[in-house]
């Protein structure tokens, strides 16, 4: 199979996020980046498909902080090719990012071979302008399914599982090539030892492919960005674990849980 995985860096929300002086963007000084969670699953799903059905996994990113580490990690995990498009992700909304990635994929082959799956993560935590997968599918004129949690390819088509709510899922048949927004892979994303990533850094190479920059980086004008002022806040319990536990027991009694 011909598998393209689109990887996006997002701010790590474990760290504190602050708004920059412009009142619109995030303060980049203390920002740490990580791979978007669903993208990690998209990569795992592609690697699982390759192991089962053969083929080639290409990981593609726009330029972003710490992105080389992510690309080398993908190679160490078993991706065959890593491509970086030298367009700064930070300045792009999802619509423009989809256009850049679609241009790259069109330049790869038009039309894309029938055994091609384009696999972005189902969503990203900064998708203010919409999700990448449906925008990409529209630009490439390919079928799309989102919130995918399982793929079984067959000749010219694939059976995919999509999550609804309450644990309910649906099974869909999709003609290939297709764009599938991945929510979770069939297995948890694999771990790769640091030594293997270092080896990949020495032996493998990140390809840079030039693409025309988008004419309009963002669709939406932000009025302001801010930290939410909570309507309420929890009553905080302080003290040693024993003291806190005593208070919690009282609360459990009050709520008829004991």
């Amino acid at each position, binding site marked *: 199979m011909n598998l393209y995985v689109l990887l996006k860096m997002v701010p790590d929300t474990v760290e504190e996020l602050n708004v920059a002086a412009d009142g619109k963007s995030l303060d980049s000084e203390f920002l740490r980046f990580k791979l978007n969670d669903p993208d990690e699953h998209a990569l795992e799903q592609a690697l699982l498909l390759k192991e089962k059905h053969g083929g080639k996994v290409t990981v593609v990113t726009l330029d972003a902080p710490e992105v080389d580490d992510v690309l080398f990690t993908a190679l160490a995990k078993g991706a065959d090719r890593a491509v970086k498009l030298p367009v700064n992700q930070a300045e792009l909304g999802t619509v423009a990012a989809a256009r850049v990635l679609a241009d790259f994929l069109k330049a790869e082959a038009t039309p894309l071979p029938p055994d091609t799956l384009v696999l972005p993560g189902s969503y990203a935590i900064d998708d203010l302008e*919409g999700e990448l997968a449906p925008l990409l599918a529209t630009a490439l004129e390919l079928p799309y399914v989102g919130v995918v949690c399982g793929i079984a390819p067959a000749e010219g088509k694939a059976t995919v599982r999509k999550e609804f709510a309450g644990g309910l899922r649906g099974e869909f048949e999709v003609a290939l090539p297709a764009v599938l927004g991945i929510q979770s892979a069939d297995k948890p994303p694999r771990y790769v030892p640091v030594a293997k990533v270092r080896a990949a850094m020495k032996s493998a190479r990140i390809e840079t492919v030039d693409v025309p920059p988008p004419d309009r980086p963002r669709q939406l004008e*932000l009025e302001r960005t801010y930290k939410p002022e909570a309507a309420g806040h929890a009553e905080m319990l302080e003290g040693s674990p024993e003291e806190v536990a005593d208070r919690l027991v009282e609360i459990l009694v009050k709520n*008829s849980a004991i």
Partner: protein
Amino acid sequence: MANTILVLAEQLRGEVTDITFEMLGAGRKLAEASGSSLCAVLLGAEAAPLAAKLGAADKVLVADDAPWDLAPADAVAGALEAVMQQTQAGLVLLGCTNVAAGIGSMLAVKTGLPLVNFCRAAKAEGGGVVCTSQLFGGKIYSDVKLADGKGVVCIYPGAFPVDAGKRDQAPPIEKVDLPVAAPKVTFKQYLEPETGDVDITKQNVLVGVGRGIQTQDNVELAEELAQVLGGAVCASRPVIDQGWLPLSRQVGKSGMTVKPRVYFALGISGAPEHWEGMQNSQCIIAVNTDAKAPIFDGAHYGVVGDVLELLPALTEKVKAKKG
């Protein structure tokens, strides 16, 4: 502001879902503030009888040809585009849900309108609409103005009141013929939720664990607390994705919606996807090492600290109390 505001009503397996009423309530307010009319669109074989429940709309457009059941996103976006032209609508509200995933993005491209995702508040202002989006797992909000009031807005579930979108009157219902292109995506069947050993929607006490539980072995500590309280352990998505607990224990957007008497959120940051599934719990007790975790904004009681230290102490105290 546009003359007509459209709401894509959502139904799953013959039931109108809460997000539909949230959108109707939000749409009603915007329509009244701007002198627009509110029109709901309902697609699917069972749409006609369900349309009667959408009394908060001034009109309900129904397409009940069978192919509309779980039709692909591009087909639904195409249908909405056609309805927008017929009704001269400029503002469309959709659910930021798994069911509607991708429809809004595709409609925005087709119509050339801007899309605002993850919207949790919207108000009419000077002929336009100001939308508030929750980004970065709910840690940051951004306000975006649709200056002419035109756009596609994806409404985050649980952010607007459901009751505001319910009316006891039957709305005028109109059938519409919408083109369905030969689909490249076809719905085959539902896959029922895995029935686990425990139904987490029926528990009085739930001990929810998130990333902060760190390892599979530590889940056992939560299991012990749940046992002494006669409850069950559940989890946010990262824990389920790691395979540490079965899918039947997932709380949140794709998982279960729960309303126990007491919900422990242990090492759960409180991302909107999780909050959606447990926000109506009677008493929420959150424990997290990050004092600024969004979970503390919604929880009733909070503890900044290490879950792994607190759990054994709490389990012992509960045991002692119960004698």
